[in-house]
């Protein structure tokens, strides 16, 4: 089968699978979060934590719970990483240096999964399975919980209660992520992903040298790595490693798992709002952004555009021959469009246009379709921005889903939209001026610049994929990127929760013919336009000096 045909077929299969899962999963998540019943497994957990699962939380209390839980997670993971030599199943690995441990702990708690280390040569199984994999579940659940709190902000009428964070966290982890990840892991094992607690194999290579082959509980970590849009690989090569992602089937399954929850959450949104068409409109906007990005990346990667690619016959540098150009382009778009960050090809080696497209995907603010939960709250914030300008143009105080967008709401929206660009631009601005940065870059000129921009964009948007090339193990980069990840995750979350609270406290405004409908193709188009314009205006200078300069050279 030709690469093109295989690519088209897997795309078709992917869309069909997502369409099949869309309604049942989306509605299941909505039911799970709104059900008044607790399961027998959950009750003891609440008792243990001293939480009353039937109480609801105010905005303040919900936000404190999110932050408190994350800070504790961060400390625990940090301790686990620096002290791993004292733990069982450490495979003889020493503790992580403090700056790398801090960076890694922040990275996994913020659902970023930026990796400044190589998994197979740095971490034992306890750190991987009890540390990183646990955060893969709960950091994803935190994202979904925050998104749900924002949705509740829209559905509540003159109330300050956003639900119960602990209940949301536990239910998403146990009832949504765990079962799907379990099935996903089994399927991955079936198609060939490794799952083992066996010792390293030392083998003699044909050239006469010796090679150590590491195995481990890979499939179980791989499933949640994709499902929770985490992206931190068991191995340094991530999903390009044959033990993580052995073949076309595993590749398709991984892409499916990446997109599954972000896509289905638009259904959850529609169902919880009692306005399914709103969910479809949001999905349409996300889909339009995704498809555009995919088309650009595929166009850039398939066929041989540059000189070297023409000489080689295809742009295969940095790509796995078992996946080819099409599947690599699809994976790259899926992983950057969601805030996953897993890679099955080296993004550093993508063509300038392709590399630029995946960079822009992250710059959009991770809304195409975005990380689990983060995509939903990100696009809702952009929808508020869109409705604000559009609402004025129809002559009314802007409203979204029955809530007025007043200066209080605009303040939180403005601060939300400011945070990530500020982190990226200031981070790049500081880093690029330092002489040490030039030494850390893997390439000179525009491409080297792109490497730095990519690193900060990936960190601040909690994506976690690496452009590669650049060396980020210096204390400067470890701390700068850790700060970008931490602030890029929790500052926006706090603004989202504050926004949710101020929306929840408002009374609902009834819909009339004078209300701007927000479930129409017109509004979805406007939403796409606002996302693109905001991104373009913020990042155009940086893009012009990086990928655009490279592409036009």
């Amino acid at each position: 089968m030709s690469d093109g045909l295989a690519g088209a077929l897997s795309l078709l299969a992917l869309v069909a699978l997502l369409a099949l899962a869309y309604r049942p999963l989306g509605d299941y998540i909505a039911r799970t979060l709104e059900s008044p019943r607790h399961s027998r497994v959950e009750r003891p957990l609440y008792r243990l934590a001293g939480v009353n699962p039937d109480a609801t939380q105010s905005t303040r209390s919900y936000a404190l719970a999110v932050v408190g839980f994350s800070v504790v997670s961060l400390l625990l993971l940090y301790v686990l990483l620096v002290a791993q030599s004292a733990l069982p199943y450490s495979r003889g690995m020493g503790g992580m240096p403090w700056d790398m441990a801090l960076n890694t702990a922040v990275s996994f708690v913020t659902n970023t999964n930026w990796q400044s280390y190589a998994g197979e040569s740095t971490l034992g199984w306890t750190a991987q399975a009890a540390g990183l994999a646990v955060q893969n579940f709960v950091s994803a659940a935190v994202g979904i919980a925050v998104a749900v709190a924002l949705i509740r902000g829209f559905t509540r009428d003159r109330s300050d209660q956003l639900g119960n964070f602990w209940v949301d966290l536990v239910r998403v982890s146990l009832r949504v992520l765990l079962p799907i990840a379990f099935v996903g892991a089994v399927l991955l094992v079936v198609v060939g992903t490794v799952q083992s607690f066996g010792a390293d194999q030392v083998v003699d290579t044909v050239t006469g040298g010796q090679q150590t082959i590491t195995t481990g509980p890979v499939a179980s970590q791989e499933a949640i790595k994709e499902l929770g849009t985490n992206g931190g690989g068991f191995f340094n090569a991530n999903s390009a490693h044959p033990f993580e992602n052995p073949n076309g089937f595993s590749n398709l399954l991984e892409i499916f798992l990446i997109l599954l929850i972000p896509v289905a959450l638009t259904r959850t949104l529609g169902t919880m709002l009692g306005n399914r068409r709103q969910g479809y409109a949001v999905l349409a906007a996300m889909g339009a952004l995704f498809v555009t990005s995919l088309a650009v990346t595929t166009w850039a990667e398939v066929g041989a555009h540059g000189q070297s690619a023409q000489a080689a016959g295809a742009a295969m540098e940095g790509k796995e021959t078992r996946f080819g150009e099409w599947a690599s382009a699809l994976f790259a778009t899926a992983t950057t469009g969601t805030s996953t960050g897993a890679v099955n090809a080296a993004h550093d080696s993508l063509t300038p246009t392709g590399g630029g497209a995946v960079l822009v995907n992250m710059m959009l603010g991770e809304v195409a379709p975005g990380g689990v939960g983060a995509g939903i709250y990100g696009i809702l914030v952009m929808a508020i921005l869109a409705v604000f300008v559009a609402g004025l143009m129809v002559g009314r105080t802007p409203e979204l889903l029955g809530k007025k967008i007043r200066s209080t709401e605009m303040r939180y929206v403005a601060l939300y939209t400011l945070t990530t660009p500020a982190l990226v631009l200031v981070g790049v601005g500081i880093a690029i001026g330092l002489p040490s940065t030039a030494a850390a870059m893997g390439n000179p000129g525009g491409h080297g610049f792109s490497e730095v921009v990519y690193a900060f964009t990936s960190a601040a948007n909690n994506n976690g994929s690496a452009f590669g090339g650049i060396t980020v193990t210096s204390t400067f980069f470890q701390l700068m990127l850790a700060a970008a990840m931490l602030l890029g995750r929790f500052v926006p979350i706090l603004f989202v929760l504050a926004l949710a609270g101020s929306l929840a406290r408002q009374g609902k405004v009834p819909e009339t013919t004078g209300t701007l409908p927000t479930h129409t193709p017109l509004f979805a188009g406007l939403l796409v336009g606002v996302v693109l314009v905001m991104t373009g205006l913020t990042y155009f200078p940086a893009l012009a000096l990086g990928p655009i300069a490279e592409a036009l050279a």
Partner: protein
Amino acid sequence: MTLSQLVSQAPTALAKLDPRHMWHNPVMFVVLVGSVLTTVLALADPGFFTIAIAVWLWLTVIFGNLAEAVAEGRGKAQAASLRAARKDTVARRLDRDGTETEVPGTDLAIGDRVVVAAGEVIPGDGDVVEGIASVDESAITGESAPVIREAGGDRSAVTGGTTVLSDRIVVRITAAPGSTFLDTMIALVEGTSRRKTPNENALTILLSSLTIVFLLAVATLAPMADYAGAPQRTLVLVALLVCLIPTTIGALLSAIGIAGMDRLVRVNVLAMSGRAVEAAGDVGTLLLDKTGTITYGNRRATSFVPQAGLDPEVLRDTARLSSLADPTPEGRSIVELALTQGAPDVPLPVGAQIVEFSASTRMSGVDLADGTVVRKGAWSAVLAWLDQTALPPSVESAVERISADGGTPLVVAVRPAHGGAGQVLGVIHLKDVVKPGMAERFAELRRMGIRTVMVTGDNAVTAKAIAAEAGVDDVLAEATPEEKMAYIRQEQAGGRLVAMTGDGTNDAPALAAADVGVAMSSGTSAAKEAGNMVDLDSDPTKLIDIVEIGKQLLITRGALTTFSVANDVAKYFAIIPAMFVAAYPGLESLNVMRLHSPESAILSAVVFNALIIVALIPLSLKGVKYRVTSAAGLLRRNLLVYGLGGLVAPFVGIKIIDLLLSTLFGSAL
């Protein structure tokens, strides 16, 4: 707006460069700082380019101030004429013992009683407590016909600065000097008490955050450019920043707000706050009094229904005859209807005697010289007069039908000259007539998403019939002030904003509770204080205009914001290649406008950015035209005009300016 208007406001615009004033507008404050910075840089490195950039940045700030000055200028003229009315008056204060003391009008206190006689100016706001007088209020309303003001009731309020034309009244002062209605008016039209409205605040937050994003993008561009081997002059970076931040809307924002208030003043409505004007655009429910707003307020004849078999002309002519001397509006309307239906216009026969309506007979009519007696009245009264027990069946059914429709049936009967049985000729259908065009306006309002509610003291049957004819959405019949309040509260609880008009003291609580309460200028001072707008023409239908002006205000803000942001795309395409084409020659292909040189590209973008402000001053003053159509239709249209237009216009504009600059100063650029 004319050129001379712009020029005449130039000194005010310069005075507004005061940083303490500019600080309130974050976007333009950044431009001001940029202007100072580029001036210093241009002085350090004088040249055509550097000086031109500095000059045009100053012009950008000044043009913004000019917009505000022109908008305020319109109100200032009006304030001057109002001030003329606030002349220093001498008041005749009536002391407790009944003696009169002459004191300056400015020395009056609340509760003082003053005497005002014909030809004198009323020294302050108050209520008439004694007497009745005709008052010339043209100083305030511009309406030259005098109005009657009398003690007690809903026509007791007088306004300081108006003139008593006849008679003598005693007024109890209700407002302290300096806070009278006239003072409020002057402050309002001058805009001295202007505060940012809620929506303006929200928009300012958005504009500020955009400004911060661009500040960051441009500030971090400096080290990025250094890395790229194309270090940029601070002057160029400032120019880029000013082009990117939303200066168009930033410069015009306050002018739009002032102009919105001014448009209200032009339709003779005074809004006590900009907040109320904005709320008007959001109104979801309109409470309209039936009488005077929806209907003419008095019953009019609409048809003659003759008894079966009778020549319709007989009824028509008899009805006319019976009403010829009837001075009531009903009577006149019967005569008019008969004439339009072709009755001969002949005078009352000689010797005819007019019988006026009396409460005891409940009939009116005419006794002719030949002894024929004509009467019209309520059917029961006419039957009693004819000494009959039942109406003819055709007449009875007509009476029933008219009553059921909420109309008033007036039965016409004749008793011949020489005795004999009288005869019922038929029925005149009297009804409260809905003003022409009201149904269309209500349909328009419905399309705007606004519910109209008719408020009336009539019984439910009459009210329903008129409501159906006018096409309102709901009726509040036999309404008491308490019921009106309850209705408003109920609508507000459902999240709708309510607008209403009122003039009486008993309307005051409802006016205060409504989101937009328009008090009639002819109303009591309690009503005027409770409402947040005053209609100087006392025309309740104006509520609809007020809603449109509110919407127009928001639309203009939204449209210009969209335009302003869309402009940035072209500016990036002009400036970024110009900045970096030396380091990355490939970027030349982004120079889609094929601009003359990097320097002319940057200067052209700056010049366009300044000129577009002046070009849009008229639009910001006039407001974007509001069309009654669905919200989606409005959005589609405005997105096309201001979004797409904003995208395309600067490409064309910058190219033209570049052509001019390169032709005129090609060697310097």
